[in-house]
């Protein structure tokens, strides 16, 4: 616990876990070290993390399905009903040119 932590932090709250994971797991220079962390493991882990926080059913209920791109889970996660608000949001993201993992039902 040191001056270093105080020095660079200006936000009042500690960083959200989601923000930290997004950066630490998905960004930064990728170098294959001597020990390989399999990126598939990372993807799996973020998927699982999501599932830990809310069950898959709950997630589907909320229309969350952006793990669709993950071949491991796309099948099982795919049978939920598209929520109209969510699909609209996806359409919106697309139009806005925002990255989205939509894989539309038809």
């Amino acid at each position: 616990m040191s001056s270093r932590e105080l020095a660079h932090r200006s936000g009042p709250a500690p960083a959200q876990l989601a923000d930290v994971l997004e950066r630490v797991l998905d960004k930064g220079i990728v170098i294959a070290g001597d020990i390989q962390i399999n990126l598939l493991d990372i993807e799996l882990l973020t998927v699982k993390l999501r599932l830990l926080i809310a069950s898959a059913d709950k997630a589907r209920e909320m229309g969350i399905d952006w793990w669709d791109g993950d071949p491991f889970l796309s099948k099982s996660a795919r049978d939920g009903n598209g929520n109209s608000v969510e699909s609209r949001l996806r359409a919106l993201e697309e139009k806005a040119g925002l990255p989205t993992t939509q894989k539309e039902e038809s």
Partner: protein
Amino acid sequence: MIEAPAGTAWYVYGVAEDNPALERLDAVELIRQGNLVAIVREVPLEEYDEAVLPERLNDREWLERNARAHEDVLQGAAAVTAVVPLRFGTIYRSPEHVVEMLGERAGEFAENLQRVRGHVELGVKAWVDLSALEQTLAAGDQPVAGGGAGAAYLQQRAQQQERSRELSDRLTELAEEAHRRLTAVAAADVVNRPQPRELTGRSEAMLLNGAYLVPEGDDRLRNEVEQLAAEHAGLGVEYELTGPWPPHNFTGEQS
């Protein structure tokens, strides 16, 4: 298990431009090569052994603890010098291998350090409570008069669809406008995939998830976010500013 001398590994958090203040960082070691410094920590090899790694990576507590530790080290380094974050889990079996890596990639690191020097990354998220917004808009619908129940239903449906289209258009414009205005006051920008609600724990949908590289001490982006928040409050759109972060989003391959 194995009590071989290979019981230790070196976890590399990032590569920084050498600076004496780095010596003050807690619990890390510095491996130097030329003007570059790898910020490393000696970790038990068994912690990151390939055999157990998949399991560890799927252990939420382990992941959170180590991801935050990774971030904390980078924050500390970024506070005193230019640093290039490496992705989580870059691990070497010996300090010599780290030195080799620094040598081989010196050009790439120099280029990245040059880009981020004197800058910080700020995150900006826009949130919208879609259901509240829909309800507000629904309250403005024309009351349905005349016709049978079927006709009333159809008319209501048509209104809803029209409203959804308008809402969608409006929010799209809004996200585009926000990003455009933030980009105008940033040295570089990245738009990331909106985070899912499971991860954010919020009921609102994320409309924009942007990262912006700005000069240290430059308040223009912060001011622009405040301005946007004030302008878009009527639509129930909220803005959230995070950081300063080490430049995670602005190193590596720039697309």
